[in-house]
């Protein structure tokens, strides 16, 4: 599971996102913690379940709401070597969305595969 690293042992971290953006602070806070984890060169993955998939929806425009639109930050994750983004297929379907409606390339996975991904982790942080 863990692999040896120059500066120590890298663990597999999974961040599970289940909340829509803006209605609560969870989405934004999760992203902050993801960036911290990535800075420590851990093996980071993100999972989006249920309303969490809405965090990735294209076309977010928060000018009227006067809060920070954090969806562009997902596009910067690649620079931190965070490239494993898993999205629950069932959640997309229930919301009339497809991978093409999301701001970044993701791997759309079924429930079984998502469960396997979760099992494969050392640390899971849920938001």
């Amino acid at each position, binding site marked *: 599971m863990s692999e040896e690293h120059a500066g120590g042992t890298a663990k597999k971290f999974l961040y599970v996102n289940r909340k*829509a953006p803006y*209605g609560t602070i969870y989405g934004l806070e999760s992203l902050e913690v993801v960036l911290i984890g990535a800075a420590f060169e851990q093996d980071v993955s993100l999972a989006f379940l*249920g309303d969490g998939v809405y965090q990735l929806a294209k*076309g977010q425009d928060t000018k009227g709401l006067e809060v920070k639109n954090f969806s562009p930050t997902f596009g910067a994750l690649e620079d931190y070597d965070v490239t494993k983004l898993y999205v629950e297929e069932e959640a997309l379907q229930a919301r009339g969305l497809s991978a093409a409606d999301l701001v970044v390339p993701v791997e759309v996975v079924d429930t079984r595969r998502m469960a396997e991904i979760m099992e494969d982790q050392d640390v899971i942080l849920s938001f």
Partner: protein
Amino acid sequence: MMKTMLHTVNKSPFDNGTLQTCLKFVRQGSAVLLIEDGVYAAARDTAVSKQVQEALKSTPIYALRPDVEARGMQNRVMDGVRLVDYEGFVDLVTQHNAVQSWL
């Protein structure tokens, strides 16, 4: 004269049953305003859109535009749901006898 109510819903219809509960109690002459995460109920082709369409036959349903736009749903709003700005929100409040905020 019959009293009218403005019902506001701020929870995602996929996250809990607030919208469903609200719709059960909406009476003739009243209206529903979707705000915050409640605006996801206004989207087309979702698991709850049929239910919202059904409600639209007897109840005007509005969605708060700044919340719709923040969530990127502006191009997905179903026919029949009307978008309002903050001024429209105030108008709706004054046009009804009372507001029930479903939380």
